[in-house]
């Protein structure tokens, strides 16, 4: 059944294209797509254990702000930029769909503080590794107690007087301190695990399905569909052959709307080249007796880097150089990666049957080349040998063990810090450590889709409309001439920005309606064209739980008492005597002949854009014949009108 225009709205709660948070109002459900946490806000804070000299700033904020090498930082527990909470009442969100472990870091803020009472859906590796990331984050921040929590500087009047980049920091009022482990556990308990291609019914109206997205262990894209509408949500996908299962593209076909987020943050760098750069610089440093520091997350790219080093270190004659992986969750991360066989690429899956560990870091650990520790304290200080390679967090360089190594190694030009995570600007990350003697190498490895791959994907999948963050519709600010670094599709993509509400364009507007058997029995179809039969139906439309049923109309009520009658007429819509429906077209020439036969003379026919006008000049009457309407216009001569009407009706079929 064709229905009145039905709007589908999308509320954009995050301005970060790779850490999205959108809410989709689709049919009668409210679905949150991802809840990424923008941690770039932490770059405005001092690294946690650092002690800095005090510089007099604004009198009110002198306790809160510290200067360091010409940059001003907030001396406080780092805070994160939350998704927008005012745009929509988050307690009305029915479900949250998570696409990968990087895009769920804001989950405790949403589930614990907004009255949210729905369900969260995510795959098992997403939940497990997401938990590790959260655990690491909480651990990093909680183990360095810092009493001070700065808030004065956020006062708008004060903020605008501060030097850049603090002056320009946005949404500072939404910045919040890190959640606690208790909140993490509570949030994670609301998650329901799903598998790829599993169909999940939401309130009978909508079906959601996760698909492999090829980016990380358990990472998924989502399909949200009703009988007639299909929305695909593409977030953090990769077409490269790394460790996860390959991306499922075929299932994204025939979408009305494709929401595209999570593209690569470094569209001009190819990951292979960057891995090469990583290895070469690592080798050069270690050969010279220097140490290499790799700030990283405890899961994801690190698996690929370790695999790469596994092959490389022997060939480069570096087998004796120890690799250290330091994170409160290092052990779990290395072990988890080996047990999620079904979520891995085919190559790694087949190793499990040999049986062999799918990732070669198992062998690195066995041969003592890779060692992992929960922190720099304890065993690590006994085993520590230099030169070495250290993988540790956090990539923002604001908290975690990495801060210790930056202080330890920063003063020697023999050492190198290699940035591989693309989430933070390395220059901003390094700002509080300046002046720095150690070498800095930036080789961001981002395996997510680039614009060429997106353009191929869109050609393959052919969605009717594409919706994406505004950042993807214009070239990056630093490379404004690279007009190729945008999403190129027809019709042009609809873009959104933080705190914007978007009406999604749908072409199809149909609903599926069932007909009760007894009603269906009563229908008498009439064939109007070969293969097409029509029947009129009078019924009551009954709608419940997003299912629509046509039921036989109630029998006309017997007029018994006035009171009862009134109630019936309230409930039952008027069943007027139905006029027959007409179909067919009027052949003008024959119609004129018929008119002449019936005594009309002086007939003139004019062609118009939409049809014809038959002029009966004598009778001062006009018959306007168009494709879907016929009008007889005459002056107060009802007799004439009825006569003409009957002549018109002769040419039409009735049923």
């Amino acid at each position, binding site marked *: 059944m064709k229905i009145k225009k039905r709007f589908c709205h999308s509320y954009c709660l995050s301005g970060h294209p790779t850490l999205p948070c959108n809410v989709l109002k689709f049919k009668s459900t409210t679905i949150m797509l991802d809840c990424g946490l923008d941690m770039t806000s932490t770059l405005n804070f001092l690294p946690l254990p650092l002690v800095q000299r005090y510089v007099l700033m604004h009198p009110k904020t002198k306790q809160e702000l510290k200067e360091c090498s010409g940059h001003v930082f907030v001396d406080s527990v780092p805070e994160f930029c939350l998704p927008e909470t005012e745009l929509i009442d988050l307690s009305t969100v029915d479900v949250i769909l998570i696409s990968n472990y990087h895009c769920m870091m804001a989950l405790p803020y949403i589930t614990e503080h907004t009255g949210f009472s729905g369900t969260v859906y995510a795959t098992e590796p997403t939940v497990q590794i997401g938990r590790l990331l959260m655990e690491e984050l909480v651990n990093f921040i909680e183990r360095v107690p810092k009493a001070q929590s700065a808030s004065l500087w956020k006062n708008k009047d004060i903020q605008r007087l501060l030097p850049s980049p603090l002056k320009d920091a946005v949404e500072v009022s939404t910045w919040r301190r890190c959640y606690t482990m208790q909140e993490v556990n509570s949030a994670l308990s609301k998650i329901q695990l799903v598998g790829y291609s599993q169909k999940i019914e939401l309130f009978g109206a909508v079906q959601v399905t996760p698909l492999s997205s090829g980016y990380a262990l358990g990472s998924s894209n989502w399909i949200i569909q009703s009988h007639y509408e299909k929305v695909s949500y593409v977030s953090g996908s990769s077409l490269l052959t790394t460790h996860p299962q390959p991306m499922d593209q075929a299932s994204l076909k025939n979408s009305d709307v494709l929401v595209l987020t999570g593209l690569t943050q470094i569209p001009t760098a190819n990951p292979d080249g960057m891995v*090469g750069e990583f290895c070469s*610089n690592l080798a050069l440093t270690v050969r010279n007796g220097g140490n290499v520091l790799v700030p990283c997350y405890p899961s994801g790219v690190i698996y690929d880097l370790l695999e*790469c080093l596994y092959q490389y270190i022997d*060939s*480069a004659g570096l087998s004796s150089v120890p690799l250290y992986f330091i994170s409160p969750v290092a052990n779990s991360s290395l072990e988890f990666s080996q047990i999620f066989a079904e979520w891995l690429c085919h190559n790694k899956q087949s190793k499990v049957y040999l049986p062999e560990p799918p990732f070669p870091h198992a062998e690195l650990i066995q041969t003592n080349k890779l060692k992992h520790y929960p922190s720099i304290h304890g065993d690590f200080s006994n085993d520590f040998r230099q030169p070495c390679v250290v993988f540790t967090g956090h990539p923002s360089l604001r908290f975690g063990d990495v801060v210790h190594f930056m202080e330890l190694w920063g003063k020697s030009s023999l050492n190198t810090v290699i940035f591989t995570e693309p989430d933070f600007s390395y220059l901003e990350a390094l700002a509080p450590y300046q002046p720095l003697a150690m070498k800095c190498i930036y080789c961001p490895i981002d395996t997510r889709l680039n614009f060429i791959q997106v353009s191929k994907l869109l050609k393959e999948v052919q969605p009717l409309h594409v919706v994406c963050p505004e950042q993807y519709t214009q070239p990056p600010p630093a*490379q404004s001439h690279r*007009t190729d670094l945008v999403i190129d599709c027809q019709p042009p993509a609809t873009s959104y920005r933080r705190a914007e509400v978007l009406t999604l364009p749908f072409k199809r507007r149909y609903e599926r309606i069932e007909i009760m058997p007894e009603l269906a029995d009563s229908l008498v179809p009439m064939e109007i064209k070969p293969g097409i039969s029509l029947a009129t139906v009078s019924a009551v439309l009954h709608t419940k739980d997003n299912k629509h049923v046509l039921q036989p109309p109630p029998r006309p009520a017997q007029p018994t008492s006035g009171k009862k009658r009134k109630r019936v007429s309230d409930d039952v819509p008027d069943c007027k005597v139905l006029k027959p429906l007409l179909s067919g077209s009027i052949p003008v020439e024959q119609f004129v002949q018929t008119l002449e036969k019936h005594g009309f003379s002086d007939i003139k026919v004019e062609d118009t854009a939409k049809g014809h006008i038959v002029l009966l000049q004598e009778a001062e009457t006009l018959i306007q014949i168009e494709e879907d309407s016929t009008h007889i216009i005459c002056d107060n001569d009802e007799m004439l009108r009825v006569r003409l009407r009957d002549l018109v009706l002769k040419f039409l079929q009735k049923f």
Partner: protein
Amino acid sequence: MDHECARLLPAVCAVLADPRQPVADDTCLEKLLDWFKTVTEAESSLLLLQENPCLLELLSHVPTLQDVSAGVLSFSLRLAGIFAAQEDCFQYLQVELLPGLFGAAGPLSRAVWAVPTVRSGWIQGLRSLAQHPSALHFLADHGAVDTVFSLQGDASLFVASAAGQLLVHILALSMGGRAEGHTCPQGDDWPTCAQKIVGHIEESLCSTDTSRVTQALNVLTTTFGRCQSPWTEVLWEHSPVLGSSDLGPWEMTAQALSRLGPTQAGPLALGVLKLHLCPQALRTQAFGVLLQPLACVLKATTQAPGLPGLLDGTSEDSVVADALLSSKSSCVGLLCRTLAHLEELQPLPQHPSPWPQVPLLRAVVTILRLCDGSAVPASSVGGCLCGTLAGCVRVQRAALDFLGTLSQGMGPQEQVTQVFAILLEYLERPDSSPMVLKKAFQATLRWLLSSARTPGCSGLGPHAVLFLPELFPVLQKRLCSPCWEVRDSALEFLTQLSRHWGGQADFRHVLLESEVPELTQQLLQDPESYVRASAVTAMGELSSRGLHATPTSPEQPEAQQSLLPEFLHILSADSEGFPRRAVMQVFTEWLRGGHADVARDTERFMATVLQVVSRDLDWEVRAQGLELALVFLGQTLGQPGPHCPYTVTLPKAAPPSPLTEVLGALCRVRLFEFAFRALFDCDRPVAQKSCDLLLFLRDKTAPYGSPWEAGGSPDSASVEAALQRWQAGEQGQPLGDLEPEAMLATLRSIDLEGLRGTLAQGSDHVEKSPQSLLRDMLATVGILQENQADCY
């Protein structure tokens, strides 16, 4: 034809004429035809047919067979053509046999004509027999030319193309009798056959059917390409179609250049520019066409109006711009072809002059910048190019190749600086693909060498002095690349650099300051054999120049650690051939150049190396061992004579030692044993090389006369016995310690000339003989017969 073949031939013909005995292998028939072609070149075909009546029987029988195989029929047609190529034989055959094969009553009218092989055989047969005027009459009488016309449009491309070729051949044959200068300009007195063909071509050219026009053009192209006789000019100038516009060939070319799209015009322009005699105006136009795409690129990226130097005021660049913008593949294709054409043109003596070096450099640097995304577009065309070319490997490769070629012309200071800057950028970029990187290394080397050749410059040249300190950190990084192709090309580049500049103080300083020598030495243990081989070559070069390692111990600041043990280890232990070959090449170079490690005790060096090499499984390593031995001989005995293909350059020719002493040395390093063993090597190049070496040795020792009368020496007999065993394949037994006189006697007793002759024949000369072919064919049939018997 020899007796044995003549004896086998009837049986083979009988097999071929028997449809129940299919010839399993088509290549046999091809080989048989090849053999008959050689036989008829040497003998009279007529005589051959008369002496071997089975052949005539075969040729007359096959076309009458009902269920003849297409392969055999085609074979018969071609064979008949080969025989009929000789006029007397043609006369003999034309009465009955040839009409039956090539006439209307032959295969033409039968169902088997539908098989392309048969049509192809028919054409090839005619092509062979059309060698004399009588053949033309035969063709005319049997309407063969009309059939060839129709075959031009054959469904099989091979047949269609062969038909076109045949027409050209017939045309040339019929015009062949014309004396030069006697051709009537109108072509009215041309032979009927030629008139017919030309008429057909003209008709086809006027046809509305494109394929017919193409066929006619193909025939014309082949005619002009193959035959330069005056009559072809008549054909060109006075053919009603080609001559109708009153345009000469130059004008026509000019028109074509202006009308064709950039993709087609480019190759034509290149062709025009390669011509030696060609009007200047046309050359200018052609060069303009070739430069258009680059001018378009420059225009799209230049802020200033007007393009100095390159195509001022171009008018038709919108077509080129359209081609560049229409699609990525069209843009990439056009640019790559343009760059390749210019690269081909630049070194030619007839290249356009003045050569627009400055704008070309600008254009190619701009293209490279567009490819790495650093160019700033000045227009929407530029913006589009930027998106299309970003990261395009094909264009990067073509541009770097051309940039390398342009190094011959250098350029103004600031532009050369720009060139070095973009080259450094490409060498540094993590995104450069291994292939692009290799090209960048090659282009860099060419520019460095050119800059050193700048007049009035001594040493490296001003650019190189500035560039090298920036280059070495990049080279260091590339030597550590996880991608082996990158490590390999970095090593090759280093080898080239050291070869050219190993003696330059500036270069030595920068190299020794860097970690490149240590990294290179480390790569001797690389897991990839190609890289190990390149590392060996590079280290060998560095070591020759005294550059291979910085002093490790403070006590011996000048001492280089010897690489000899490491190289010997690679030679004896490396599992792959490439590194071992590389070691042998380095050793040969070292011996030639008098490298200290070798010169310290050359005899011991030779003895060790020859012993290791003689056991090597790779024949190239063994061959290289003989090369080393030859250099050694040259140094001990004096330069090899002119008959020897190898030239040995020695810095200072050492005075030849007395022969006894030399022979003693050769025995001590066991050179005789090595060379004798190699003489019976299962790989022919090794045996040949050894043969050459021993011949050289024998000739060198001959003038001294023999102090010991050969023949009676018992030692010699035992050596010869050992050699015979080796020849029989028993390689295990060593020769034992033997006296020089025994060696010399053995050397003189071996028929080296005879051996050289046998080796030159090739190992397959027996298998290639016609007897063997005929026997094989019979044997195959024999086997088939047995199988048939089993089946029944």
